[in-house]
């Protein structure tokens, strides 16, 4: 076989791999849209489920996911931004402290999501929650059980690395000259951070937040036993209530539903809602990141 033919065959093979991946992506999208679009309506999004989940809408799941990601963002973003500021502004490159922090962040990024769930159960619920009950409630079980608060905090730990990496990337695109100019004008390091670095990296902070929200809305494993529930009559009223979530809803409905014929359209529609949600969030984040990189050039 002469070289040209070998070239063509092997190069086509690599091209086919790309096409294969894109084909799979399109299939997942197409099948989800085909199965879910007919059932997607405004009513579906604002109604409560009826008749044992066989009819009605997914409003509580949407609200639950939204609330959970809100609390998660409030918990994760300040921590993430602060750590990113440390890593890019204060850390000396060879210090053991900085290297350990980077290693810790990388570790958090690769730990399986279910381990965070175990940690939430063992630490937030089993340690903090139960001790809170002992101190504040005199032993009555309120905080020592799965709730939206603990699930959100667990998710916050999961998405922390995402925020840190995005913000650090954005801070690093601020040119050194701007920092030097600020210091030359007499500003202190902290003033420089507050008035030059932070405002300049706002887009990056936004990107990190959006990516974290997208990840938080999609992950189910950490909330499996730290707060998500399937059959809830009402929306969560307080931080110690359980909540419904889109991802958890899909999981339970597709694996444990008693009446598959009735729930199948709802399953597809819920999956479509979750997919559209994460999709649009990721798309916005990608556009923002593209803008940041263009600015850096």
């Amino acid at each position, binding site marked *: 076989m002469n*070289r*040209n033919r*070998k*070239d063509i065959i*092997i*190069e086509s*093979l*690599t*091209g086919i*791999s*790309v096409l*294969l*991946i*894109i084909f*799979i*992506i399109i299939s*997942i999208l197409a*099948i*989800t849209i085909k199965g879910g679009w007919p059932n997607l309506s405004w009513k579906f999004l604002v109604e409560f489920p009826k008749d044992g989940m066989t009819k009605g809408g997914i409003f509580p799941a949407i609200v639950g996911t939204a609330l959970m990601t809100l609390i998660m963002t409030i918990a994760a973003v300040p921590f993430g931004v*602060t*750590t990113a500021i*440390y890593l890019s502004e*204060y850390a000396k490159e060879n210090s053991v*402290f900085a290297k*350990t*922090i980077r290693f*810790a962040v*990388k570790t*958090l990024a*690769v*730990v*399986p999501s*279910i*381990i*965070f769930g*175990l*940690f939430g159960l063992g630490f937030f619920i*089993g340690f903090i929650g139960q001790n809170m009950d002992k101190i504040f409630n005199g032993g009555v079980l309120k905080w020592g059980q799965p709730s939206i608060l603990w699930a959100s905090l667990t998710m916050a730990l999961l998405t*922390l690395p995402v925020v*840190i990496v995005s913000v650090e990337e954005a801070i690093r695109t601020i040119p050194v000259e701007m920092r030097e100019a600020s210091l030359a004008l007499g500003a*202190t*390091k*902290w003033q420089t951070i507050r008035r030059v670095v932070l405002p300049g990296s706002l887009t990056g902070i936004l990107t990190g937040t959006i990516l974290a929200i*997208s990840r938080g*809305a*999609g*992950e*189910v*494993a950490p909330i*499996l036993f730290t707060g998500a529930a399937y059959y809830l009559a009402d929306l969560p009223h307080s931080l110690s209530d359980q909540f419904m979530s889109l991802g958890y809803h*899909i*999981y339970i409905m*597709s*694996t444990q539903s008693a009446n598959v014929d009735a729930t199948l359209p709802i*399953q597809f529609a819920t*999956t479509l809602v*979750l997919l559209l949600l*994460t*999709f649009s969030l*990721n798309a916005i984040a990608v556009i923002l990141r593209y803008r940041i990189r263009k600015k850096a050039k």
Partner: protein
Amino acid sequence: MIHRVLKQKRAAGSNEPEKISFAGKKFRFSDWFAERLIKVVAFMSIAIVALIFIFVFRETFPVFRMDAVRTVESANLVPERYGEEAVNPGNSIASSTEIPASRSDIKVSKPSSTLLSTDWMPVSDNPRYGLIPLFFGTLKVTIIALLFAAPIAILAAIYTSMFAKPRIREIIKPAIELLAGFPSVVIGFFALMVLATVFQDIFGYASRLNAFVGGFAMSLAAIPVIYTITEDALTAVPKTYIEASLGLGASRRQTAFQVVLPAAAPGIFAAVILGLGRIFGETMIALMATGNAALTSMNPFESVRTLSATIGAEMAEVVFGDTHYSVLFLIGSLLFIFTFALNAISEFYIKNLVIRKYQSKK
């Protein structure tokens, strides 16, 4: 500010070298405070990892402490049997010939001694916590997933970085990273609803949800990870290598596979390791597509149970603090140790490989 300093010196009226501060005291405090606070918050990430270590491991201690041998009346204990069992009508089970002669052989054993057995049966009168079928299931699914994911992702990365026109590259890269944005529930749902049926039509096996379907679905989750890092590694190879190779008359394909690929080998290795870690810890896809039966067999078309799926499926239903609960935490600790070790190896070993490789080139 210089005026303030000069005024201070003049006011002091002496020639002693005074400590000159170039900022007012007020500003210095907030600077000092901000720096301290930021350092403390950054330290929290280390604290979190340490806490995870502590609290996940803490819940596993009961497994090893529990040496209470639950003595159950042997007469009431009947070993479970699955599969074909001819129960003759009219005969009670007690009189069937399948019960072993010596009843005293059947006793409840210490939980930690059952960890290496091949039965995962935590919910029974004689609970056995054999981890072997779970490890086996995880291994099966991981191997199948990597077998699909690694070649496809690496080949796709080679195409994107070496053969594609720049404008097409701008489209392909984000498109594949889109796959990374699919939540694993969605991929699991897709596998459960569509892939399982499709593969059953093609291969014609008995269990609709098995290691093959689960493994294939997991590869979908791992492909974006391996692809992105491999593509970065390939584009990081110095252009001089490529130009030298082409200058010597090699074709594009030969350059890609015999020059660039070996040069990017540490990065590609790291990518596969990362994909491996992702697959190992993936829970939702395993829960939805692998069949969830703790069987040990070499057949890829049989249902399996992975380690993370076991935790996910059973944790919601255990009693807080009992043996089953602790064994599930033990599984979690093993998963944590494994991914931690994988990450440490890839961090230190790969970095050394890359540094040595590029340091020796002039």
